[in-house]
């Protein structure tokens, strides 16, 4: 076997506008080897593989395929080089047959018509390579996710892929399905296919990987053998110093404000219980898909739940009633402000006033004076940088948009603020302002529940940290006892014990 890697990402950097997402990262992929990409959410893994898949081109650095510098301007070019990417979101057309999916764009023809016999023969052949014995005439949507994934791999192989990129292929598979997938992957490795494997699950790395590239904040951290002990991998993945970016001023916690007991929704979260006191910031950590967002949305009345209770200041909240939660003083800052938080085409003033629009109205008439006064007071207090209150909120920067969503709840007098990824896509300056606001809220006797995937933020701003894993509470840590490793191992370990 020659030592020349099939693929080298040679000091690649990707910038989107002023933001550098991938910064000078080098990855080598060899024939018949599985290169694992390890990093936290948002570390830049997806952007890296998108450069290979032809979705993005690097801003600097080069992609070297078989020793030759190569441009991959689009997905066609990537395919032509023998590179196949299995994305996290599967790309099959569920209403078409498995065979049509595998042979999409290159259906065998005879006399200008699709040669069905040949099509099914080719598809069956491809399916055999991944050990999948299903009828290729079935619609792809009739298969479970694991089998759909195998169909995608079969499709990649039938395209003569020599390099397979698997983006978190095990994220939604059962233990048994993972075993089968790993069997197929090992078989492909022995046939000389090179692979890039992305996973959060540390146990899988030793089970399947050859070598691990660790990236953090878009930067290359280390390349280590897959046999590296898990604690070392965790440290490499998350180990950055907590600096003074997190100006948490703890206030002595007082009476409980929000109490959640046995909250359960089938398939999303199970038996979640916790309590937040006035003056307290509770951080909720966990991997993507652990059920954090689902739980806080249920608390705020945005989604229903099956069993359990939510009480605010001793009074139970009715299930799935947003207006009741708001009246009780609960305010939700949702995770994606553009999709769920703001009416981008409406003014700053309108956006600041939505939570009080109906409740402040008298005889159905808008309280125009009150709405305007509240908006201008809150905008001033949060230092929202804008041209005027009449400016379109969509024209503001991410940080200022987030302040508007927060301001809506300040304006409504909410005492329990639920912040879901409050600083995602927010510049450093505005981040600190948002942290200061959390301090002000707790100092004034409010409580904050903060869901965040940024561990330093969780550690730096929370008084207590609740770690979720697989829809359950994996543990609650006092901030003083928590560090990145204890939180991460709670978030990851539980998943392992369920799976292996």
């Amino acid at each position: 076997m020659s030592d020349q890697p099939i693929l080298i990402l040679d000091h690649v950097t990707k910038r989107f506008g002023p933001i550098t997402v991938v910064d000078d990262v080098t990855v080598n992929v060899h024939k018949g080897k599985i290169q694992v990409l390890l990093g936290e959410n948002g570390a830049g893994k997806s952007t890296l593989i998108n450069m290979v898949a032809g979705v993005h081109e690097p801003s600097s650095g080069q992609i070297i395929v078989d020793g030759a510098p190569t441009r991959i301007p689009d997905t066609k070019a990537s395919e032509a080089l023998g590179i196949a990417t299995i994305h996290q979101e599967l790309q099959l057309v569920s209403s078409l047959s498995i065979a049509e999916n595998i042979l999409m764009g290159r259906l065998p023809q005879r006399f200008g018509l699709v040669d069905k016999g040949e099509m099914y023969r080719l598809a069956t052949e491809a399916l055999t390579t991944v050990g999948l014995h299903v009828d290729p005439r079935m619609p792809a949507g009739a298969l479970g996710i694991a089998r759909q994934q195998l169909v995608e791999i079969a499709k990649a192989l039938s395209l003569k892929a020599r390099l397979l990129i698997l983006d978190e292929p095990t994220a939604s598979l059962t233990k048994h399905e993972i075993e089968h997938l790993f069997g197929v992957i090992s078989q492909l490795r022995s046939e000389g296919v090179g692979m890039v494997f992305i996973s959060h699950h540390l146990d899988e790395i030793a089970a399947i990987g050859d070598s691990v590239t660790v990236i953090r904040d878009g930067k290359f951290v280390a390349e280590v053998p897959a046999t590296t002990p898990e604690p070392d991998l965790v440290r490499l993945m998350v180990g950055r110093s907590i600096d003074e970016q997190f100006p948490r001023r703890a206030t002595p916690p007082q009476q409980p404000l929000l109490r959640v007991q046995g909250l359960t929704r089938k398939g999303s979260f199970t038996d979640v219980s916790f309590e937040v006191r006035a003056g307290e910031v509770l951080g909720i950590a966990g991997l993507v898909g652990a059920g954090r967002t689902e739980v806080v949305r249920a608390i705020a009345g945005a989604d229903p739940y099956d069993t359990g209770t939510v009480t605010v200041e001793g009074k139970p909240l009715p299930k799935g009633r947003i207006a009741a939660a708001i009246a009780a003083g609960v305010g939700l800052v949702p995770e994606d402000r553009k999709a769920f938080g703001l009416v981008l085409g409406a003014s700053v003033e309108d956006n600041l006033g939505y939570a009080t629009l109906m409740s402040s109205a008298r005889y159905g008439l808008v309280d125009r004076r009150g709405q305007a006064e509240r908006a201008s007071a809150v905008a001033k207090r949060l230092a929202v940088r804008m041209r005027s209150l009449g400016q379109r909120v969509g024209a503001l920067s991410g940080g200022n948009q987030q302040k508007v969503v927060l301001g809506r709840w300040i304006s409504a007098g909410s005492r329990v603020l639920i912040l879901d990824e409050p600083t995602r896509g927010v510049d450093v300056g505005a981040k600190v302002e948002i942290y200061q606001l959390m301090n002000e809220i707790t100092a004034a006797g409010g409580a904050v529940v903060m869901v965040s995937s940024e561990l330093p933020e969780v550690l730096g701003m929370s008084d207590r940290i609740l770690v979720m894993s697989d829809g359950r509470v994996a543990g609650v840590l006092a901030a003083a006892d928590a560090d990145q490793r204890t939180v991460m191992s709670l978030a990851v370990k539980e998943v392992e014990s369920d799976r292996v």
Partner: protein
Amino acid sequence: MSNTQGTTPTAQKAPGADIKSTRAKIADFISDNGALVGLLVLCVAMFIATPDFLTPNNLLNVGIQASVVAILAFGQTFVIVTAGIDLSVGSVAALSAMVAAFTGQSWGMPPLVALLFGLLTGLGAGMLSGAATAYGKLPPFIATLAMLSIARGLTLVVSNGIPIPTPSVVTWLGGSVGPIPMPVVVLVVMGAIGWFILNRLSIGRAMYAVGGNLEAARLSGIPVKRVLVTVYALSGIFAAVAGLVLSGRLASAQPQAATGYELDALAAVVIGGASLAGGVGRISGTLIGALVLAVIRNGLNLLNVSAFWQQVIIGLVIAVAVGIDVLRRKRA
């Protein structure tokens, strides 16, 4: 394309901005008030083409011709603002007028009670469409398409396919008081009501939030379903009023009245600057849109342009008006 260019518009303003900004200001005014500018240009063009256009009599004529479509379009504006669509307004107008005429004529109800029956018919039809959309999760296009057919069918059932004379008060709505045509008065009153609802009532402001981002509105505690039912109910009432005016002008409720008017109403709303994507729309814009349509029809009639060509021209006007709107949104 916009992700890397986010900061350039402000940066560009620095050098040589003076010449640019004057031109930009004019362009801004024209695109912000495109419909109004268009209407004025149309009026001037019509006046040049035929001086008859600018006589008081003819202008009142334009008002009468605009009234039914404008009232329908006011109701449609609420719906469009919430990113919905109401295809049933023409049929609901006909049904409401027919119910008023029928209850007056066949059941012998007093004229005012018959009129009330007509209005309630519009309200009921609208609430049904709204409930089907908000609670039944039917797409508005489908729910109101169904109502279009149902209401037209019921109109034929009630009338047995034969026109029915309207109650006196309805006929009065179609007539005139002194020189002032009542349809124009109704148009102004309904426009004022529409403006008041959209701008002064909390539920009116909520309509913009729901149309701009339904999920953000919902998470802010706005009762989205109630808002949706309300807009279709309003659309139904406005359609009923339009239907009463139309039948009043003819002094009889016709089974095939207002067929296809839903498209004129939609065109008026869209020419007026509302976006089918929701969150945008004004009563004043809709009024201008309805007047644009009426002026074109009126002017082309005065110029003896055939009705066939009128349709072609109106189609072009819709395309151009919306095209300008799309360009404006791109720039914003």
